[in-house]
């Protein structure tokens, strides 16, 4: 059992094996994500009823919450992958972790900007230095820090390790983001979705909301996968099979 797992782990941690096997995945993930996101947003913008207190501005929730979820989920993934990379010296985990950074940063940026836009009609202000907003800004800055570390190192392997350590230290910020709305007085409302309670939303709003979250998850996976495949080509470019693959690309143009 354990040996079978080790064999499986070794096979999938080989960049070449992963590159070959993952060929069709980004295609299917991308199309599933497109279909789900388009339906969710058309539903959310045009068919979901108006919210009683906030009017139509609440429709921002269909991109604000999914992007905020993803910015935190991707950060957690980077930390776990960094740990796997450090402990098992697994190159592929570092490649994936690195290419998670721009996608996660774009999600944190989107959550912050849509939050600010939503805050104006709802709270009367774009920005407030309160716990939730500030800890989300720290998350975006952590993403910038991770990317900067990769670019600062002469050898990419040093960048991998340095970024993994920063990612692990920065994990403290995740519970701060999550509990900020409970620990401190903040403008931000508490979580809409909780595992322990029935959601306080009507199905006509809840279904497109959940679809948008699923769609953002699938899209982020597709983007990270596309980026990881290119990272593999770039980092393994001295090996024979990558040269063949790049020749094939160049001829196809």
């Amino acid at each position: 059992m354990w040996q079978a797992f080790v064999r499986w782990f070794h096979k999938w941690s080989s960049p070449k094996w992963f590159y070959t096997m993952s060929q069709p995945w980004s295609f299917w993930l991308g199309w599933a994500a497109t279909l789900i996101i388009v339906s969710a947003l058309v539903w959310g913008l045009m068919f979901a009823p108006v919210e009683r207190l906030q009017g139509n501005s609440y429709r921002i929730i269909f991109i604000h919450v999914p992007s905020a979820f993803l910015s935190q989920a991707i950060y957690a993934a980077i930390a776990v992958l960094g740990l796997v990379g450090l402990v098992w010296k697994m190159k592929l985990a570092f490649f994936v972790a690195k290419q998670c950074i721009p996608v996660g940063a774009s999600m944190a940026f989107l959550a912050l900007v849509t939050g600010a836009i939503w805050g104006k009609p709802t709270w009367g202000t774009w920005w407030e230095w309160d716990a939730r907003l500030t800890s989300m800004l720290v998350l975006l800055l952590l993403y910038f820090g991770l990317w900067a570390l990769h670019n600062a190192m002469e050898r990419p392997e040093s960048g991998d390790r340095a970024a993994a350590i920063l990612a692990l230290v920065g994990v403290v910020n995740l519970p701060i983001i999550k509990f900020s709305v409970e620990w401190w007085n903040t403008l931000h409302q508490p979580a809409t979705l909780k595992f322990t309670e029935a959601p306080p939303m009507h199905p006509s709003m809840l279904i497109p909301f959940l679809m948008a979250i699923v769609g953002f998850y699938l899209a982020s996976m597709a983007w990270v996968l596309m980026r990881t495949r290119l990272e593999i080509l770039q980092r393994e470019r001295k090996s024979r099979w990558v040269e063949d693959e790049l020749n094939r690309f160049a001829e196809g143009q």
Partner: protein
Amino acid sequence: MGAFDSFSAFLAMGDHGVYVWSAYAVGAAVIAFNVIAPRVHRQRLISDHKRRVRREQR
């Protein structure tokens, strides 16, 4: 049209049209970035590779 009486009511979003549509415009820009950036990266990999091959042939 769904939750709205007319297309102009849909665009106006009550009086929240500016907020809703600017938020969705930023969303569209972020999605465009994530779709386009890997394609640019791929092009750069290919052109770097071509340059390397040419240099080696000389």
